[in-house]
């Protein structure tokens, strides 16, 4: 029988997956697609601290903490997709599990992690991506499960194609599913492989011992209003102790609950043969067991200091853009950030690396990066414009970003959110180097920033970039027929990185002229109007010279 607990867990996971699917299918709806990410207390709290920001959108996470104060860690038990996923994986690994281990000091680790992250956040460096549960689980489903499922589905389509063709089943024949590809999958695979494997040690190993959000909520649920209570009917049989997924019941005395560990799944209540367990408003006379595994203030401070020290090392890294931009700043050279990305340091402080933008990117252009931006930039989004272009009409990444590390832009502003500038490598260019008719870069450029020119000694026109018209969208780099590295590449040069204000105003003040709509001089024109002095690209001179 599916218990109430499991039912709510499943509904919650399904809702999480539906929102992610909506984001993946580019459905910009009034629904907050990033709702679950906004519920993650550690993710939001630490981001707010590291980026020194507070948005109204952060209120749900505060509400979660408030609810925890009254009802305990119900978020962990019922809502968190990470917890549900681990419960699911538990089914696969539990069989080989040895006896419940002693409730050990291991569970202190999660506080150490929380305070490590807090220490770094206080210095403005965000490491939430290594441990915030919603950041991790969004990446797991968005960047690993989704591509794998899409790939398998496509393989099935390939298999049934001959049959479908034979039957002229057009719906099947012409079905196209985009199969995205992502970088850094190895990390996600190894990380979750390890988490799933740890189920052999104990159920919910992550939630018990490692999760910083669990730790934060534990701090708020030392004594929740609604909590576990054991009546005098208890016979000390110990079944509840063995059934508790969080090991929140004392082995020596099943009447004693570690409320900060309890996720209110009420498994013990259902297991108890004497019906001696009740979750209810407990009257104040209940005596609380003293915290057995509390750790000293010193440990808090040490882990915080360790986090701060790590952040400091990060800030002194070669790629760190700490301080004002100026000579000696080594910005990552080929790294093009998504349109609307904040100035680099703010961006890194604010981005939780949840991968929602990458999963939602309809062209599969946005990719998590490894160490291109130093270890502080691990898993942050970068545009891989060889993989695909970044459409000036698309605003998905900004729409789904839960922490606004990528700004949500209006249609007009988006067109001006310059991500970089195209540079032509003449030595690789078919037209410049090999004198081949090509001009693909001009053909595809939505900003009409590629111009062609007749060069002496070259029989074909050659492309040139008009920098003031180039927004770095990367159509040219993506479509360039030259193999491996393109002959036209977007560099982050000239990217507009602003935390506030209008890209249009800023762009115009820098002399940019970015437009993807036809100029007024074009459009339907009466015939006979002379086009003027320009040459006609692609036509050959008439060697017979008749006119």
């Amino acid at each position, binding site marked *: 029988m599916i218990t109430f607990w499991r039912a709510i867990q499943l509904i919650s996971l399904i809702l999480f997956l539906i929102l992610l699917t909506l984001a993946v299918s580019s459905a910009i709806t009034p629904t907050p697609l990033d709702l679950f990410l906004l519920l993650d207390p550690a993710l939001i709290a630490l981001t707010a601290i590291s980026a020194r920001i507070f948005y109204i959108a952060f209120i749900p996470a505060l509400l979660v903490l408030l609810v925890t104060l009254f009802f305990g860690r119900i978020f962990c038990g019922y809502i968190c997709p990470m917890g549900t996923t681990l419960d699911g994986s538990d089914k696969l690994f539990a069989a080989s599990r040895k006896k419940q281990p002693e409730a050990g000091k291991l569970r202190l680790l999660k506080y150490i992690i929380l305070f490590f992250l807090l220490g770094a956040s206080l210095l403005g460096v965000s490491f939430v991506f290594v441990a915030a549960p919603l950041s991790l689980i969004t990446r797991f489903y968005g960047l690993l499960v989704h591509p794998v499922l899409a790939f398998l589905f496509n393989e099935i389509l390939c298999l049934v194609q001959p049959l479908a063709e034979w039957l*002229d089943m057009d719906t099947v024949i*012409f079905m196209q599913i985009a199969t995205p590809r992502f970088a850094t999958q190895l990390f996600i695979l190894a990380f979750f492989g390890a988490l799933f494997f740890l189920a052999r040690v104990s159920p919910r190993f992550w939630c018990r011992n490692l999760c910083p959000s669990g730790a934060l909520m534990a701090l708020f649920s030392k004594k929740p209003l609604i909590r576990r209570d054991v009546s005098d009917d208890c016979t000390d049989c110990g079944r509840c102790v063995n059934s508790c997924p969080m090991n929140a019941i004392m082995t020596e005395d099943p009447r004693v609950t570690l409320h900060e560990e309890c996720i209110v799944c009420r498994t013990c209540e259902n297991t108890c043969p004497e019906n001696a367990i009740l979750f209810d408003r407990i009257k104040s006379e209940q005596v609380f067991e003293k915290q057995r595994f509390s750790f000293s203030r010193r440990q808090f401070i040490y882990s915080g200091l360790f986090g701060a020290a790590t952040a400091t090392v990060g800030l002194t890294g070669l790629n760190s853009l700490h301080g004002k931009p100026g000579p000696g700043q080594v910005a990552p050279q080929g790294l093009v950030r998504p349109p609307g990305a904040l100035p680099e340091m703010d961006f890194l402080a604010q981005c939780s690396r949840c991968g929602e933008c990458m999963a939602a990117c309809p062209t599969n252009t946005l990719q998590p990066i490894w160490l291109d931006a130093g270890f502080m930039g691990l898993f942050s989004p970068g545009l891989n414009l060889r993989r695909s272009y970044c459409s000036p009409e698309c605003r998905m990444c900004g729409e789904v970003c839960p922490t606004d590390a990528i700004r949500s832009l209006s249609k007009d502003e988006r067109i001006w959110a310059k991500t970089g500038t195209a540079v032509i490598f003449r030595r690789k260019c078919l037209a410049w180097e090999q004198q081949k008719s090509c001009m693909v870069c001009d053909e595809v*450029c939505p900003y009409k920033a590629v111009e062609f020119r007749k060069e002496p000694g070259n029989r074909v026109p050659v492309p040139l970039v008009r920098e003031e018209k180039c927004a770095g969208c990367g159509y040219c780099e993506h479509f360039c027929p030259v193999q491996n590295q393109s002959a036209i590449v977007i560099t982050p040069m000239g990217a507009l990185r602003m935390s506030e204000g209008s890209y249009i105003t800023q762009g115009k003040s820098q002399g940019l002229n970015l437009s993807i709509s036809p100029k007024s001089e074009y459009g339907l*024109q009466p015939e006979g109007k002379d086009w*003027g002095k320009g040459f006609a690209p692609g036509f050959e001179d*008439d060697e*017979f010279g008749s006119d």
Partner: protein
Amino acid sequence: MNRREFLRYQAKGILWMIAGGSGILLPKRLIAAPVPDIAVVKGAPAAATRAAVDLLGGMKQFVKPGDRVVIKPNMSFPTPPERASNTHPEVVRELAVMCKEAGAARILVLDHTLYREELCLERSGIRKACNSISKKMVFALSDDRFYKTTDIPGGKSMTSTDIMKEVLRSDVLIAAPVAKSHSATGVSLSLKGMMGLNYDRSVMHRKYDLHTSIVDLCTILKADLTVIDGTRILSTNGPGGPGKVLKKDTIIASKDMVAADAYAVATFEWYGKKFKPRQVRHIREAHERGLGRMDVENLYVKAIDL
């Protein structure tokens, strides 16, 4: 007369003989045949399309009952009809209607779009126009499973490429390009348009000679009927535009891809100038390799105004 002058005199004679001979080899028809080589109709997009095909003897000349037909328009750009980078939706629709009237069993409108499939189908207006005939007609096929590696026996440069399977399975191929300029190939008409039926076109730029490989491709993708949409002409900045769009209200139809393309080149203005078909290298090569005739002055052209 010394020897040099004599040789020069002889050479001139030979040249004159060649010129005269070519006149005999490529004669202008003395008696008007009932079916023109090229039909040119001025009028509204749908009506002119129908009239032009009718001048060639009607769609039943090309499509037999039960045939599988593929129509290849230009719909690679997410732009509306007035930008003239895609074929006019009404031209495509009318062709599909005529194929249906002729008894076609299956009619598909296919292209391998440059931009995102959905955007192109939607903004070109072509899917919407054809929806009234069938909702499963217009497709932009990008996945490699829709393509099959195919030999090009007559290929000079490109001897093998991946062709859309549905085209290989079809009985009739109709080229329905819009008339537009192209920065690499001068114009993009029916011959150049066939690049939308193969999988990897970048290789035609990179590995092969672009013009030669277009002709190579057309040796296996030879349209049975070519209908060029000259209702609007993207006269400059093609293939994507925005560029100067000339309103010409013209439909050109022919059994001969090369002739239709050549006629469009010679008739319309490109970049404010007049060009000869031979100035477009892939048209010239197609003519030289016997794919069709670019000497439109020697062909029977029937032009009417609606």
